[in-house]
């Protein structure tokens, strides 16, 4: 909607809000009809407030957040690092590039029981799950970006006998960053999925743990409240990722995904 001004933008927001309100009302009515299966939004909200009150929700959020951040950080370091290394070393690329693609297609959910059996359910094992979920998009996008660094610049650098470090600083990293950022955006989403895999299948902690135990109690109010909370957090994270990507790559707008 490029030709629309802020006026119709406002209208779009208003309609979206009206849609949300309509959904909430429908949910409330449906919840009053079938209170066992479908808790009303009011009850779900009360359940969340109660969990904030007794401290379980903040503690769980902290747990989940820490796991997410540590795993994502490890994936960014590993993915960007190895992606750049792949771009500079023909040998490494020829020998392991295809392996990356092979490994990328292994579903991490399915690996979870094996990781649990081999490495237990400590923080390390859970971080490994998050790392594995997030590292491949970052790695692949970074390698792709480094490949797109202008050949002429690389050749000029070589003609002028540039060292490896200035070459990275002035040519490789600036040209790779936008691509790495798209990778990191996808990585953020995948790390969030990985966090839930870890919390559901390794050890029931954090938000995932709360969801599982509430579901086992058939406590639909808590489950619904938490599910909505998760979806809001996920949407915020996606928005943040898109922001990051745009901030580093204003000229690549729209060419992603």
């Amino acid at each position: 909607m490029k030709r629309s001004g802020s006026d119709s933008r406002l209208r779009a927001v208003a309609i979206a809000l009206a849609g949300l309100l309509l959904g909430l009302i429908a949910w409330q009515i449906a919840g009053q009809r079938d209170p066992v299966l479908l808790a009303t939004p009011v009850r779900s909200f009360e359940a969340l407030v109660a969990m904030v009150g007794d401290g379980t929700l903040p503690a769980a959020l902290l747990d989940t957040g820490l796991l997410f951040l540590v795993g994502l950080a490890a994936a960014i370091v590993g993915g960007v690092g190895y992606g750049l290394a792949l771009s500079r070393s023909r040998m490494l690329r020829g020998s392991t590039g295809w392996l990356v693609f092979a490994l990328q297609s292994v579903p991490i959910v399915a690996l979870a029981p094996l990781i649990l059996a081999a490495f237990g359910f400590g923080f390390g094992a859970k971080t490994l799950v998050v790392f594995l979920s997030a590292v491949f998009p970052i790695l692949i996008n970074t390698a792709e970006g480094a490949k797109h660094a202008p050949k002429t610049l690389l050749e000029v650098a070589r003609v002028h006998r540039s060292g490896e470090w200035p070459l990275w600083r002035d040519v490789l990293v600036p040209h790779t960053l936008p691509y790495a950022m798209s990778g990191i955006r996808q990585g953020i989403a995948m790390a969030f999925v990985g966090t839930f895999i870890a919390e559901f299948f390794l050890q029931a902690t954090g938000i995932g743990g709360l969801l599982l135990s509430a579901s086992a109690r058939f406590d639909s109010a808590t489950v619904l409240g938490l599910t909505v909370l998760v979806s809001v957090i996920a949407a915020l994270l996606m928005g943040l990722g898109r922001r990051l990507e745009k901030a580093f790559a204003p000229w690549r707008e729209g060419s992603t995904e």
Partner: protein
Amino acid sequence: MTTLTMKAPVRGDVTGKIVAVLVLLAVWQIAGSTFLPDYLPTPFGVLTELVPTLTSSAFLTAFGETVGAVLLGLVLGCVPGTAAGLLIGRVTWLRQISTPYISGLYAMPMLAIVPMATIWFGYNNVTRVIVIALSAFLPCAVSTADGARSLPANLGDVARVLNVPRGRFVLDFVLPSALPFAVAGVHIAVGRALVGAAAVEFLANIDGLGTFILTNARSFAQNQAFVGVAVLALLGVLARAGTERLIRRVAPWQQTHQD
């Protein structure tokens, strides 16, 4: 995706590949058998278990269960998803109303919906099919909506000038330009459907490849479990290769979506 492969494979690359595989397998085998025997699958173990596992009746029924549910879920998710995408893409107010729902659900890991789904639909195949269908619905709807919106403005003008009726407009103008996007949506949906199936099977304990992996991993049959993981991965690769070919067929200019 041929981003990392070389255009003309050189002999050095082939040896490099072989060396890389050998090193990987050797490290895996040695680490597995010295540090974590019985806890980690090993290449030799997987190799010896490969044929017996693939032909065992437990595996075959699990395979049939999962593939059947995934296929059913994909149909139930992709068909309405594509239709919804066309509508959302072309009807402005519908898009504005549905945006918060679609983007909230699309961003959310489908895993997180499983606890709710088990309360609503029980610990059975219905839950599995519904979660698969929902994981397939969202990428199809989002991608097709993108496609329906990206119809070049001058084509719309042409249709208006020629007084093309609304039905013909959708069939002859919108659908062809949205088609590659719709296939790209299916491309993403397939991967998510497989993952969703395994996740529901784990959580709800329904027969299928997921439970096959879980029971084997729990009873110290790591190698058999790994065969299950590999089969799931292979299914994903094959399905994605299939949709990628389809995209290249219907729209050679289109870049495939990356999930």
